[in-house]
Each structure stands twice: as C-alpha cells, then as structure tokens.
C-alpha cells in the first residue's frame, strides 16, 4: 500500500514482486507516452512536490476502503519521458477480480484530473505545448 513519485523508470515485475499477498486477483494499468501525430519527442511532467505524494496516498486509501483492497500501489513519474516509455502505473489487489478492476479504473479517473501533475508535449522540433485537460476525464470522475 504505497504511492511513489519519481523521475526514474519503473519495472513492473519488480513492483509486483510480493505485491498483493493473499489476494485472489491483481490488476495493473500502465500508462505510456502516446504519439498521436508522429511528431512528439517526449512529455515533460511537472508536479507539486509534497501535495502529490499526499494526494496519491489519499486516493489509494480511499480506493482500498471502497473496494476492500488487499493491496494497492501507485507509481507516477515526472520530468522528461520519451515517446513510448511508461509514465505511471497502478496496481490493485483484491479477493475477486471485479473489485480489483474497478479499483484500478477508479484510481485512474482520480489521477487523471485530481492529482497535481501537468503534462507538456515536446515536439521533435523542440517546441513545447501544455496539454489541455479533457472534459471527458472530468466526466469520468462523476461516475464514482
């Protein structure tokens, strides 16, 4: 049951070693830097040190209470991350699959619009552009 913010890449197998002992189901989600236009070099992710760790821990604990999780983990990177590389992961462990799936979905909806991260796209030409928040991310949160 932990949340981490780091610049370094993470390794999913390492993260899952010993994760969710006693659970019947483990779900993981990994977000990658996607290039929709063929012109993206990287993302640069800014965050709010202090608040970020606190917010991720709050959302993890809320998911654990709501879905009865045996274990949860959130790892979110910041700094410059190249196209195709992992940005973040959530893992949820529960007795049964539906709780694990729903908890991972819930956590992603909260992280998308309520965790203090801001993405900036860096083009192959070096131009930087802040990514705008999507209204459907906000709509997704209303499901819960």
């Amino acid at each position, binding site marked *: 049951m932990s949340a981490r913010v780091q610049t370094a890449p993470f390794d999913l197998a390492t993260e899952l070693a010993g994760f969710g002992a006693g659970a019947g189901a483990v779900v993981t989600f990994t977000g990658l830097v996607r290039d929709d236009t063929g012109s993206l070099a990287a993302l640069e992710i800014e965050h709010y040190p202090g608040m970020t760790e606190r917010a991720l821990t709050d959302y993890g604990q809320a998911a654990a209470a709501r879905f009865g999780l045996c274990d949860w983990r959130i790892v979110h990177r910041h700094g410059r991350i190249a196209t195709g590389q992992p940005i973040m992961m959530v893992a949820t462990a529960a007795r049964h699959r539906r709780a694990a799936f729903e908890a991972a979905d819930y956590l992603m909806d909260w992280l998308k619009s*309520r965790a203090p991260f801001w993405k900036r796209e860096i083009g192959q030409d070096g131009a930087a552009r802040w990514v705008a928040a999507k209204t459907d991310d906000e709509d997704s949160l209303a499901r819960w």
Partner: protein
Amino acid sequence: MTIEILYFAALRERVGHPRETVTSDARTPRDLVAELAARSDGHAAAFADMAALRCAVDQQLTDLDAPLGQPREVAFFPPMTGG
C-alpha cells in the same frame, strides 16, 4: 497574514516565478486572486481565465470560494493532467 504562494505549469510561466511570499487578509482564494492579479501584467495574464483556475490550500484541493482560514501555503495552477 503571511502566505507562501506557489504557481505551477502555465501559471508559473505567465507569472514568471514559481513562488512568492505575500501579506494578505483575503477571506477566500478568489479574493486572494484579485490581489495577486494586480501585482503585474504577468499575474493578470495568469489569472485571466478563472474557469481554468484550480487551487490548493495547504496542499488540499479547495474551491475558490471556500473560506481561506490561516493558510501557510496556497497554490494556483491549471486543470491537472496526470495519469
């Protein structure tokens, strides 16, 4: 009271620095924004779109019209884009 103000992402760029210490008796974050926006053209530009403004008071997301209390730290930033 003395408050540490933090700016992130596009707001930080428009204001021109990531933090500043101010003295204010603002009763809500919205009142504080009105005071901050008067500090420079960059501040005014940063706060031009109130619909796209988010705020955290002592590292908790807070409505712009909530009572401010006696915060140590108030942060302003655009809608978040994590995940």
